[in-house]
C-alpha cells in the first residue's frame, strides 16, 4: 500500500459511505468468499489470510480503528490482490500502517494491486467501482487528482451537506439528481482522501 494512504483526520462517515462499505463487504463475502471481521490490530490495517484450497474461502481481519472510507479502499485494493492471485498458493496479505510495518519486499505486489484497484474504482465493473453517477465525471476526477483541490472539494461538499441539513431542504431535494450526485461525490471524495493513490493518472 502506498505510504500516503492513512489520513486519520479524513472522517466523513455518511450514510452513503456506510451503505457503500456494507455493499462492498457483502460482495467480498458472496463473490470472493471472504469472511470479514473487525478487531483491534495495533500495527496493521488489515490481514487477509488464505487457506490452501478455494473451498475454505479467505479470512479478512480489519482493524477496528479504520474509517469507513478506509475500509472501502481496503476492500477494493484486496479484491485487486485476489484478482492478481497474490493470495496463492497460501499467502497472507498484510496491509500495514505506513512507517510501522515492514512491507518492502511486498512493494511490487502492492503497486500492482494499486494499479488494478485504481482501474476497478474508475472502471465499468459495477461491483467494485465508485458510485455510477460520479465515476464518469471528468470534472470531479480532475479536482480529486491533486491534494489542494481535493481538500478544497471536500470542504465545499461538507459545507454543502451542512447547509443542506441546516436549511431543512432535504425532504424537497432528497430524491433529486443533484442531491444524489452530491452524496456520491462526497463518498468518492472521502475514499480518495484516505487513499490518494486512487486518483493518480
Amino acid at each position, binding site marked *: 500500500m502506498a505510504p500516503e494512504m492513512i489520513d486519520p483526520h479524513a472522517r466523513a462517515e455518511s450514510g452513503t459511505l456506510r451503505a457503500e462499505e456494507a455493499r462492498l463487504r457483502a460482495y467480498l463475502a458472496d463473490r470472493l468468499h471472504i469472511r470479514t471481521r473487525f478487531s483491534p490490530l495495533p*500495527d496493521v490495517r488489515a*490481514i487477509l*489470510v488464505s487457506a490452501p484450497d478455494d473451498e475454505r*474461502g479467505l479470512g479478512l481481519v480489519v482493524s477496528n480503528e479504520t474509517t469507513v472510507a478506509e475500509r472501502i479502499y481496503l476492500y477494493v485494493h484486496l479484491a485487486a490482490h485476489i484478482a492478481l492471485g497474490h493470495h496463492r498458493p497460501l499467502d497472507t496479505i498484510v496491509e500495514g500502517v505506513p512507517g510501522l510495518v515492514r512491507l518492502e519486499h511486498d512493494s511490487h505486489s502492492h503497486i500492482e494491486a494499486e494499479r488494478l484497484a485504481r482501474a476497478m474504482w474508475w472502471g465499468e465493473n459495477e461491483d467494485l467501482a465508485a458510485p455510477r453517477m460520479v465515476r464518469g465525471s471528468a470534472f470531479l476526477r480532475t479536482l480529486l487528482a491533486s491534494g489542494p483541490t481535493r481538500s478544497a472539494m471536500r470542504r465545499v461538499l461538507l459545507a454543502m451537506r451542512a447547509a443542506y441539513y441546516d436549511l431543512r431542504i432535504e425532504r424537497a431535494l432528497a430524491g433529486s439528481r443533484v442531491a444524489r450526485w452530491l452524496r456520491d461525490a462526497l463518498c468518492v471524495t472521502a475514499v480518495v482522501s484516505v487513499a490518494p493513490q486512487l486518483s493518480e493518472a
Partner: protein
Amino acid sequence: MRLSDAERVSRAIQTLSGGASLDVIVDRLYDLTAGTLELDRATLHRIARGKTQVARAIDSPEECVRLYFALMILGCEQDVATGTIVEEGRAMLAGFIGEPLAALIFRDLEATLPKLTDRLTLKEYLEEGLRLWLPR
C-alpha cells in the same frame, strides 16, 4: 500419525504452554479448536512428555495444522516471547507433518511474521488461520 521427533515436539508443547498444566492446556485446545480435535487427554499427555512416537487420534494433516495454530495461540495467551512461539510452533508442525504442506505454511508464516510486530495482531492472525482450518 507418526511423530518424526517426539522429543522435540514434547519440548515445543511444554514451551508453548508457558508452564500451564497439561489439563488446562487440553481444555483450552478443545475450546480453541471448537471440539474438533480427536486427541484425548492421555495421548496428549504422552506426546507432551515425549513418551510416544504415535498420535493415533490425529488422522489428517488438517488436524495437525489445527493443533499447531491452537498451540501457537496458547503461546500468545501464556505470554511466551513471539520469537519463541514461532520457533516452537515450527518445530511442532515439522514433527507432525512433512513436506509439502508444512513448507507452504512455513513459507507464508516466515513472510507474514516480520510484518506483525504486535502480539495482539499475531494472535488475531493465528485465530483467523485456525478458523480457516476448522472443518466446514
